[in-house]
Structure formats: structure tokens, C-alpha cells
């Protein structure tokens, strides 16, 4: 690698917010129906020849991020600078020549090739679209070169084949051939091997690495699979609910993952080794609704290390009560369910949660239920974020701490971590775990 790598791609505070359509009336009167923050302030820089792995679960915004870099989805904020050109405000007509340098490989090779086009037509298509040439002979020569590059040889056997004649791996090779025919600098590959069989995946990854070296490509590798990313990437960005929660050199992320989310992801991959089994302390629940993200840190409801100021709120209380009912027999549930009135009152995100008493029940009954839940599992981290619980007004009011923090990315060594555990470490002091109430389990 050169001593001073040239930055090819710079993404700065990129935002992609999709407006939510409300009901018919909302649309008619233009009321505020909120938005989904698919990508919510993402920044990174990528040097020429580097591979960035964007890793996350479905709903993390990783695919939207990949598309937003190419402006295939409308960008609502921030900047994308490619090879010194700011793409953000370019008109489509100005953007089009830039797209020759930036190509995309999609996940599903079956869906990204037109079944009615033979490979010569399909792979040569970008040359026509971008006005490189209309000359049949030249197109044929270029297509042959691209087919050879991706290992679809002898090329004569493939030029007139249709996607239906090819295996999954061959199709993905054809898709890659189409992506490189214009000689791009940047390739955004969205799960390029996840639809392929195990015995073929390594072959396609190897091909992509070869192409990177031969053609000097730079990759953004979008994936849910930390195992292939480990092999492939120089840098890793872990995404959760539209944000990067951990970012850094791949070797350090794998050797020393800092964010509890990254740690969980790495622990959750089943190894092909029956003598090892998965950790028991994996996060509960699933990635939350991006339209109404959790308060504070988005990961706190699932986080095994969450503590006082992570953003505890009303919905967490509902989850806790429901988990309590889950572990108790049906009869007890029927009885306890009547103690509480409308539990949906907790669904509105707030640091003050009011849990109404059921018909004919008193606030004290609700208080007793909460006490019982707390006694059942006093180590539950939610309680660390509770300032006050008081009965009254036909129910119980729970006040959570309102000084919670939505963690920005803190610099920790060569990594950046959006987790409050590192708030102090960020100022070159060792991490102060004194305030951590929740334990690992």
C-alpha cells in the first residue's frame, strides 16, 4: 500500500430519511407523519484499493447506504464525495458520466440479469447506455475481455448463452463482468455471495479479490455475514438501525470488538464445529422499528451491558412486564393481566410511563405487580434507569432518567464505538465501569 493513500470515496453525515405516508386524512392535510431514518448520519472515508465491509442485520440500513452512495435512492442530507467530486447536488445528467466509475453488484444474480438477453447483449449493455461505443465488433471484443477476466472461458461458449443456461456462480460471474466492463474505480457489492452455495462462495470471493488487485478496484462490501467480511475487508463498519455503531480496521474489530452489539454478532455465528456451542448470553429481541427508534442508544433494549443512562423508557417497561408473563403459568397471567389496564398506554415512547390499573383494581395492585417483577429479577438493567415509581392517578407512574445519552461515535484506539461504556475512554482515560449496573449475563 502507498504511504499516503488517496481518498477515493468520502461519505460525510449521510442521511436517507423516507417520509412515512400517514392515513388518507394525514396525506390530505399534510400532517407530520414522521419518517424512517434508514441511514442516519453515516460518515467514513475509503482510500483507493481498500475494501470496506458494511455489516448489519436486515433493517440496519446497510443496503440503503450502498445505494445512497450511488444516489440510487434520494439522499436527504450529508455529502458523498467521489474522487474529488461532490455527488450530492449533481443533477441526474451530471451524475450519469460519474456512474461509469461506480458500479453495483446485487445480491440475487437471478434477478439482476434479464432472462431474455444473452450474455453478449447483457454485458455489453453498459457500453451502449453510457455511449462508449455502438460498434458491434468493439462491443464483442470488450465483452470477451470481461468474460475472460471473470473466468467464463472459453468465451465463445458463453457469449450467446442466456442466464437460464448458467449456474448460480456463473450468473454472478456474468453480473461482475457487466459491472467491470466500463472500467470502474468503485464497486458496491451488496451480498454478492449470500445466495450462492458454500462450495462456490469462496470461488467468487477469490475472483473479486483478483479483480481488485488486477484492476485496482475499491469495494464497498455490504453483507450480514461477518465470516466472509473477515476474509475480504480492510475496514469494517457495523451498522445498527441506520447508524454506524462501530468502525475500524478489520483485524481490530475481529480481535477486539468493542460495541456490545458487535460482540454479540460475533458470538452468534454458529461455527462448523460440534465441540463448540453458541454463547447463552445473546441479546433478546430483534432490531426495532426504525420509524420509532428507542430513546437513547438504539441497541439498549437488547443490550446485555446497558446501564442507567442508555435511554430506558416506557416501551422497555412493557417488554419487561410481557417477559414476566412469559415465564409465568397461564393462570397467573390471566389474574395479573386484569391488574393492569391498557398496557398499550406504554407504547408511546416517553421517560414518564403511566401504567393504568385495570377495572376494579387499585394503583396499589399495579405497584405490587411491579414490585413482584422487580423482586423476580432485581438485576434487570431497566431498574437502574428508574428514578421514581409512585402510585396514584389510577395507576402507577414510572419516571425514567431523562439525562440519557444517545451515544455518538467515540474514538477508542483505532476504532470508533457508539457506546456509552467508552464515553470516558474516549478522553484517553481507561474505561470507567463503576457506573455499570448490568452484568454480562
Amino acid at each position, binding site marked *: 500500500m502507498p504511504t499516503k493513500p488517496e481518498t477515493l470515496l468520502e461519505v460525510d453525515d449521510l442521511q436517507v430519511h423516507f417520509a412515512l405516508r400517514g392515513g388518507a386524512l394525514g396525506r390530505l392535510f399534510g400532517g407530520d407523519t414522521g419518517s424512517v431514518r434508514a441511514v442516519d448520519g453515516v460518515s467514513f472515508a475509503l482510500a483507493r484499493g481498500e475494501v470496506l465491509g458494511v455489516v448489519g*442485520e*436486515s433493517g440496519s440500513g446497510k443496503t440503503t447506504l450502498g445505494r445512497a452512495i450511488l444516489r440510487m435512492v434520494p439522499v436527504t442530507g450529508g455529502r458523498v464525495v467521489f474522487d474529488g467530486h461532490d455527488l450530492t447536488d449533481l443533477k441526474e445528467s451530471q451524475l450519469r458520466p460519474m456512474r461509469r466509475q461506480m458500479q453495483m453488484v446485487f445480491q440475487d444474480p437471478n434477478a439482476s440479469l434479464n432472462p431474455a438477453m444473452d450474455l453478449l447483449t447483457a454485458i455489453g449493455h453498459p457500453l451502449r447506455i453510457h455511449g462508449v461505443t455502438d460498434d458491434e465488433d468493439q462491443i464483442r471484443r470488450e465483452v470477451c475481455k470481461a468474460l475472460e477476466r471473470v*473466468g*467464463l*472461458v*472459453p468465451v465463445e*461458449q*458463453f457469449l450467446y448463452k442466456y442466464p437460464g443456461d448458467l*449456474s*448460480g*456462480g*456463473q450468473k454472478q460471474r456474468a453480473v461482475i463482468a457487466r459491472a467491470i466492463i466500463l472500467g470502474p474505480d468503485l464497486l458496491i457489492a451488496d451480498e454478492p455471495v449470500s445466495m*450462492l*452455495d*458454500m*462450495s*462456490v*462462495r*469462496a*470461488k467468487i*470471493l*477469490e475472483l473479486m479479490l483478483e479483480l481488485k488487485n488486477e484492476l485496482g478496484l475499491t469495494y464497498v462490501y455490504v453483507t*450480514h*455475514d*461477518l*465470516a*466472509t467480511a*473477515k*476474509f475480504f475487508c480492510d475496514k469494517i463498519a457495523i451498522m445498527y438501525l441506520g447508524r454506524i455503531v462501530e468502525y475500524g480496521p478489520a483485524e481490530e474489530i*475481529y480481535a477486539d470488538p468493542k460495541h456490545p452489539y458487535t460482540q*454479540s*454478532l*460475533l458470538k*452468534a*455465528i*454458529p*461455527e*462448523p*464445529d*460440534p*465441540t*463448540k*456451542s*453458541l454463547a*447463552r448470553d*445473546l*441479546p*433478546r429481541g*430483534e*432490531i426495532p422499528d426504525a420509524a420509532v427508534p428507542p430513546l437513547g442508544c438504539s441497541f439498549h433494549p437488547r443490550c446485555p451491558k446497558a446501564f442507567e443512562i442508555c435511554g430506558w423508557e416506557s416501551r422497555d417497561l412493557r417488554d419487561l412486564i*410481557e*417477559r414476566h*408473563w*412469559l415465564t409465568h403459568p*397461564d393462570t397467573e*397471567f390471566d389474574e395479573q*393481566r386484569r391488574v393492569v389496564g391498557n*398496557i398499550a398506554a406504554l407504547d408511546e415512547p416517553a421517560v414518564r410511563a403511566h401504567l393504568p390499573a385495570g377495572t376494579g383494581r387499585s394503583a396499589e395492585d399495579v405497584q405490587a405487580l411491579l414490585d413482584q417483577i422487580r423482586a423476580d429479577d432485581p438485576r434487570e438493567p431497566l431498574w437502574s434507569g428508574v428514578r421514581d415509581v409512585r402510585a396514584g392517578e389510577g395507576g402507577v407512574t414510572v419516571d425514567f432518567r431523562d439525562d440519557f445519552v444517545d451515544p455518538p461515535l467515540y474514538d477508542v484506539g483505532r476504532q470508533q464505538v457508539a457506546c456509552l461504556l467508552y464515553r470516558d475512554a474516549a478522553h484517553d482515560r481507561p474505561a470507567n465501569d463503576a457506573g455499570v449496573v448490568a452484568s454480562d449475563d
Partner: protein
Amino acid sequence: MSTLPMAPSADTVLSVRDLRVWYGTARGAVRAVDGVSFDLKRGETLGLVGESGCGKSTLGRGVLGLLPDAAKQAGSVVFEGEDLITMPRRRLRALRGPKLGLIFQEPMTRLNPLMRVSEHFYETLHAHEPDLTKQQMRRRAIDTLGAMGIPPTRFDNYPHEFSGGMRQRIMIALALVLNPAFVVADEPTTALDVLVEAQILRILADVKRSFDTAILLITHNLGIIAEACERVAVMYAGRIAEQGDARAVFARPAHPYTRELLASTISLATTSLHYIPGAPPDLVDPPSGCRFHPRCPDAMQVCPTRHPPTVTTELNQQVDCWLHGPEDEIPPGGTQPLPREAIGVADEA
């Protein structure tokens, strides 16, 4: 012909012998499953692993008699003393649900969007146990859902109000509420994220313990097999190449395909990339003899001539591979290496 040397033991729930499934196509018969035998014990999870097109899903459905009319079947699938292949369709229908269950790959598309979760359970329970009162049905459903981690407060919600992982839990609960003795789980976690996958794997382990259900777990992911199965059957081109105790098979794969597949798997422990040259064969016209021989690094002269008989190794793995003999059936010179035809990328995946 591959038959299991062992006789089925007393706690065997399901015993499959020489099962064949083929479809007629314009090009000829596709032999999707071609002589498969295995046994499943009570409370045991057998992992069926293979690449796409190897016939594993067809096998899973064939065992339950859920194949389309165009598919032809031969062999036997003996469940609690009755052969599912030859029994009348009405009898088979009556067994499905209370005795035989299926968990599908895609939880998104298997629940009726217009029915509440509760109604799914009432329908299932009412169809098979019409004597239950509504209160009893509710109790059964809520208990089963609870074991899958669905809180009782969500019982009357609609499917769209649940996440993908929750829907898969609901599907599993629906398959288990009638307490079947045998369940086929066809790629139950493939559509899910890794953290949710881990949750579902734990649930399947709990199910096995608390319901004593025998599970045929179909997957392409060797990591899931290692995590969730006591025994594993590795399928290639319509046949089981190797089966045995999961620890033994992973530690000492007897069949070269198992070995190569394990080496191709990219995990966090992977240090170098490896793949199997060539591509799985066309099942209309599979290679002669052992079907893996054109891709096999250990292929011998005997391999293309005859399919190897099933042999039991000292670790009690059943393997179809001439490397393990029987030596008296290998013709003279049969163990000489087979000159490898160069596999061009043209034939590769």
C-alpha cells in the same frame, strides 16, 4: 443399493428405506432422491445438509408425503409401524399435524394475514381435537407460544404485527401445539438474522428436550448442524454420501465430499479460501458410479464404474465411498487414481 446395516431399534420413530423420488420432465426423469435410507430416534435431531439442488427439500417433503402429484415415489417411510408411502391419503392426512409436523423456511408467507394468531391456533386445534373447549384450546396455544417466547398479551394480534423472528416462533408453535412425534424443519432460520437465528436454534434445542420430538433439520449451513444436531446426513446429488454422529463426521469426515464441503465453509475460524471444483451434476443424467467422482480429489479407477455400497466405519459412520471398501468388491487395479479430466470453468459453478 444403499440399505442401512443396522436394524431399527425400539425407540426409532421414523425409518426410511431406499426412498426414491423422481419427476418426469421433457428431458427425462429427474431423480431428485435416489435411494436414501436413515432412521430417526425419539427426541433426536438429524441434520440433513447439502447444497441447493441436492434433493434435501424434496426428501423432507417426500417423507411427509407432501410432494406434488407429478412426483413419483418408491421405497418405504415407516412411522410408528405404518408405511407412509403406501397408506391411504386420508390416513396420511389424519397423521399430519398430530403426528407429523413441518416448519417452513419462510415464516412471512405461511401465516394467513387476515387471521389473528389465536385463530390460527383455534383452527389447527379444532381440526384435530374437536372435543377441546375454547378455554382449553387457548390454554394449550398460550402455553406453546410461551415456550417459544411469544408473550400471551400478543395472542390476539395479526401476523403483520410481528417481526420475522416472532413469526417463525409462531410457526414453530403451530407445528408443535399438537405435539407431533416427528417434525421436518426445512431451513427454519435461513431467512433470519444471525442473532434471531441463534434464538431459534435455542428454541429447537428446548423443544427437543421438553416435547421429545424427533426433528429432521434441513439446512445448507454446517454451522447450524454442528450447533443443533446429534447426527448428520450429508446429501449429494440425490443420495446420502455419509451419515453418522455429528461430532465424528465433523472431526473425521469419511466421505471426500463431506471433507471438501467442510473445507469450503467460510467461518470466523477460516484462514484460507477453499472450494470444490466443478458443479453439482444434472440429476437427469448424473455421472456414472459414484456421483461425486468427477469432482473428487481422491477418485479411483473403480469410482465411475459402480456406485459404492454403504459401509460402516469404525466410528460408526455410514459412508458410500470406495475409499472405505469393501475391498473384495473392488476389481484389480481399481484403487489406482483416476486421471482427472480438466474441469474447465465452463463446467464450474
